[in-house]
């Protein structure tokens, strides 16, 4: 007579599964690589000497001093961040309408200067505002929302549709935020 096969208790199966689940939830670190993406200019020695004069009207000057005070086009900025984004957008898309503002989006340059004493927090806050202006413009031109645009720009080669939208959004408008070497007043 064969011996009866012993039963495997299955009441605790759920407990085990749950325990493992909790364990993996706790130990898995979600890689959070999100942030503001910029491209650095080539090494200092590889750059041609700076004798190219950019007309004043094609420059939008944003400055932060060592006390984190914001200067826009030489004047202290009192408006909100959204207003600054709008001002940058207006400058880039001026297309020669206002003779004192930029000639065309290709020629427009947003110059962003900081000081060695500026805090990183403020630097990021203002950089965020400036980048928003460009991303909004690209998104508008491609006919998508800002969130969608940033998703496309993060990986333009993902699908042919993305590639097409990316081309459409970027057309004729270079991403021209120039971050200058900080001045040495503070810090």
């Amino acid at each position: 007579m064969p011996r009866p096969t012993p039963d495997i208790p299955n009441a605790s199966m759920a407990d085990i599964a749950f325990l493992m689940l909790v364990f993996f939830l706790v130990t898995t670190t979600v890689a959070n690589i999100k942030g503001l993406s910029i491209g650095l200019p080539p090494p200092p020695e590889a750059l041609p000497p700076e004798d190219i004069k950019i007309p004043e009207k094609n420059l939008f000057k944003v400055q932060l001093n060592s006390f984190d005070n914001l200067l826009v086009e030489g004047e202290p900025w009192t408006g909100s961040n959204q207003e600054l984004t709008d001002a940058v957008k207006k400058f880039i898309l001026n297309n020669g309408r206002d003779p004192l503002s930029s000639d065309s989006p290709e020629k427009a340059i947003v110059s962003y200067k900081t000081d060695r004493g500026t805090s990183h927090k403020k630097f990021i806050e203002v950089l965020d505002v400036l980048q928003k202006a460009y991303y909004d413009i690209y998104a508008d031109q491609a006919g998508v929302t800002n969130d969608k645009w940033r998703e496309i720009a993060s990986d333009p080669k993902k699908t042919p549709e993305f590639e097409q939208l990316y081309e459409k959004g970027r057309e004729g408008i270079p991403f021209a935020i120039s971050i200058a070497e900080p001045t040495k007043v503070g810090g």
Partner: protein
Amino acid sequence: MPDVVFMLLFFFMVTTTLRDTSINVQQRLPEASQMRKLQRKTLVAYLYVGEPKKVDQWGKEPKIQANDVFIQPKEIIQWVNQAKANLDESERDQLTVALKVDNETKRGIIADVETELRKANARKLLYSTNPKREEF
């Protein structure tokens, strides 16, 4: 059955490495709304900048941490070359440096890091940020 559960638990506790580097500088990341996501995690190298956590041992001056050690700005070129050596030849120019910089750090030290990165030809940069809580 509890024995099995404990065995599993111990097994994973022993085999799983929680994190390969412990960060020894303050990391209160700034907030931003216009964030972009990096796709290829293998192509990212991290630099941590901030005030050391152990102030009595390392002082209050902000420091740069790469892997497990504090480095001087001058050593960044070497560090970049090491990071590039770990990648496939075709992917070396796609290396992105993620700068995790504490809120209170001054621009000065970050600018020094950027200058070295330019020299090392690692020009893709990402300032790590947290999502902004309120709409601006």
